[in-house]
C-alpha cells in the first residue's frame, strides 16, 4: 500500500510539473497576438523589420532573461507602485515598467526612432512588448504593506498553499487548456471601436496607471483569503475571466496604440 501511495505521488508530481510549465507565457503571447491584429500596416511592417519575428514570439522574453545575471536589473520592470489613494507612485515607479515605457515612448514617438541605431529601436520594442502588458496584470501593481496589509496572503489549491501572484499571472489561461492565441483573440477580443477609444484614453499614461490600480483591487475581492482555487464557483470563475480578459484587452489595445503612434 505504501508503494502504491509513493507511485501515485510520483504520478501527481509528473502531472503537476507539466502543468506548471504549460502556464508560462500564455497570457503574454495572447495579448501580443491581439495587439498585432490592431497594428496599422506601417507599424506591423516596421515591427517585423526590427524584430524579424511576430510580436508574440518575444512576448515573454523578459521573463526568460530576467534570471540571467546581466538582466537582473530588469527585475523591477514588470510592474509599478501605487499610492494609497489610487495614484501612480511616481517616486517609486520611475525605474519600473511605467517609467521605462514612458521613457521609451518619448524617445521614439513622432519619428524620433529614425535617429536611433536599429539595435536600440529593436531593444526598445522588445521592452514595450513585454513590460506594457505586464504592468496591466492586476498583481503587478505594488500596493504598500503599510496601506494594504490585508493584501498579503496566499490561496490554496486542493488544500495546499498556492501563490496568489502565480494564480493571477496565469489567469488568462485559467481553465483554457489547449487554447491557441488565435482562439483567445477570437473568443475574447470583442472590443468595439467606441470601447477601444475609452481604453486608449488619448494615450494618457497617467490615466492608464490609475485605471490599472483601480481594477487591480478587484482581484483581492474575487479570490479572497479563504478561496481554494480548485473549487471556485461558476460565478467566481467568470469573475476571474472577466478581470483577466479586461486587463488583457486593455494592455493589447494600448500596446497597439503605442506602436502605431511610434511608427505613424
Amino acid at each position: 500500500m505504501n508503494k502504491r501511495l509513493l507511485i501515485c505521488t510520483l504520478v501527481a508530481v509528473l502531472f503537476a510539473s507539466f502543468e506548471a510549465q504549460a502556464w508560462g507565457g500564455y497570457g503574454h503571447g495572447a495579448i501580443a497576438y491581439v495587439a498585432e491584429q490592431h497594428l496599422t500596416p506601417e507599424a506591423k511592417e516596421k515591427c517585423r523589420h526590427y524584430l524579424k519575428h511576430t510580436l508574440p514570439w518575444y512576448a515573454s522574453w523578459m521573463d526568460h532573461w530576467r534570471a540571467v545575471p546581466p538582466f537582473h536589473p530588469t527585475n523591477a520592470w514588470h510592474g509599478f507602485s501605487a499610492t494609497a489613494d489610487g495614484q501612480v507612485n511616481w517616486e517609486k515607479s520611475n525605474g519600473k515598467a511605467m517609467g521605462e515605457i514612458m521613457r521609451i515612448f518619448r524617445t521614439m514617438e513622432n519619428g524620433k526612432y529614425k535617429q536611433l541605431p536599429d539595435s536600440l529601436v529593436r531593444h526598445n520594442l522588445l521592452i514595450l512588448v513585454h513590460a506594457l502588458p505586464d504592468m496591466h496584470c492586476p498583481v503587478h501593481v505594488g500596493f504598500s504593506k503599510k496601506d494594504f496589509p490585508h493584501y498579503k496572503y496566499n490561496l490554496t489549491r486542493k488544500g495546499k498553499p498556492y501563490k496568489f501572484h502565480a494564480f493571477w499571472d496565469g489567469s488568462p489561461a485559467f481553465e483554457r487548456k489547449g487554447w491557441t492565441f488565435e482562439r483567445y483573440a477570437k473568443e475574447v477580443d470583442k472590443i468595439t471601436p467606441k470601447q477601444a477609444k475609452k481604453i486608449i484614453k488619448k494615450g494618457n499614461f497617467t490615466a492608464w496607471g490609475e485605471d490599472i490600480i483601480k481594477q487591480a483591487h478587484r482581484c483581492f475581492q474575487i479570490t479572497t483569503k479563504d478561496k481554494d482555487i480548485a473549487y471556485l464557483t461558476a460565478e467566481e470563475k467568470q469573475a476571474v475571466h472577466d478581470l483577466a480578459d479586461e486587463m488583457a484587452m486593455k494592455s493589447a489595445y494600448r500596446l497597439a496604440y503605442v506602436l502605431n503612434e511610434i511608427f505613424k
Partner: protein
Amino acid sequence: MRSNSIRYITLLVVAAMATFEAAAWSSKGHQVVAGLADKYLLPNVQREVHDLLGSAMENSAELPHTIYYLNLTTEGQPQLVEGDVLIEIERHIGTLRNRNNLAESEAREALKALIHLVADMHCVGHVRFADKACASDYTIYLPNGATGKAARRFKMTWREYWSTEHLKAHYGYSTAMHIRDLELRFKGEAYDMAHGLTPRDWAVDMGCECRPLYAWAKDEMDIPRLQHLALEELTNRTLAKAGWRLAAMLNNIFK
C-alpha cells in the same frame, strides 16, 4: 490483492509517462516541419502529395515507434550504420521514385516516414558522433534561473532537451503561427538551406552545426540559463532547414 494494486500502479505510471512524452516537441516540432514543407511544395506536387496522404502534410507527421539517429564519424561524416536515419531516408526516397510500380499504400507509408524522418534528422538530440555515441542519453539539468526557494533544476536527457525545451517557450503558438515566425526569421536563407542539397549533404551540415555542442556536452551537466536561451536560435534554424529541405526533396521526387 497486492499484485492487482501493483498492476494498477504500473498502468498509472505508464499512462503518466505517455502523456508526458506526447506533450513534447514530438508532435509540435514534426507538425511545424511538415506544415512549412507543405507551404513550399509546387502546386502539382502538393496536389499529388495530399491525394496520396489523404490530407495536408501536417496531419501525417505522426510518430513511428522506433527512434532513428543520425550516426556521424568524429569528423562529422555520415557513418551509414544499420538503422541509421540517413539509410532509412534514402530507402524511402527510392520507394517513392518507384511509386508507379508499387501499391498506393506502400508509397503512402514511405511518404509518411520521410515526412517524419527528415524532421528527426534535423533534431540536434538525434545526432550521434562516433566518439560520443551515448550523448543522446546523457542526463542534463536545466535550472530555472531563480535563486533561493524558487530555484529548480529540471532533469531530462540530452535528446529530450533538444526535442522539447525550446518549443515549450512558445506555448500557445499554433503550428501556423510557428511557421510564420520561422519564415520571418529565416526566409532570406531558405534557398541556401535547401537548394541542390542531398540528404548526405544535410547530414554533413548537421555535423557542422552539432560538433561544437557535442564537444561541450557532458553527462550530468547543467545547461546554464544564458546558454539555454542562446541555443533556441539553433533549434529554430534546424526546424526551418528541415521544412525547406523536405519541400525541396518532395518537389524533386514528385516533379
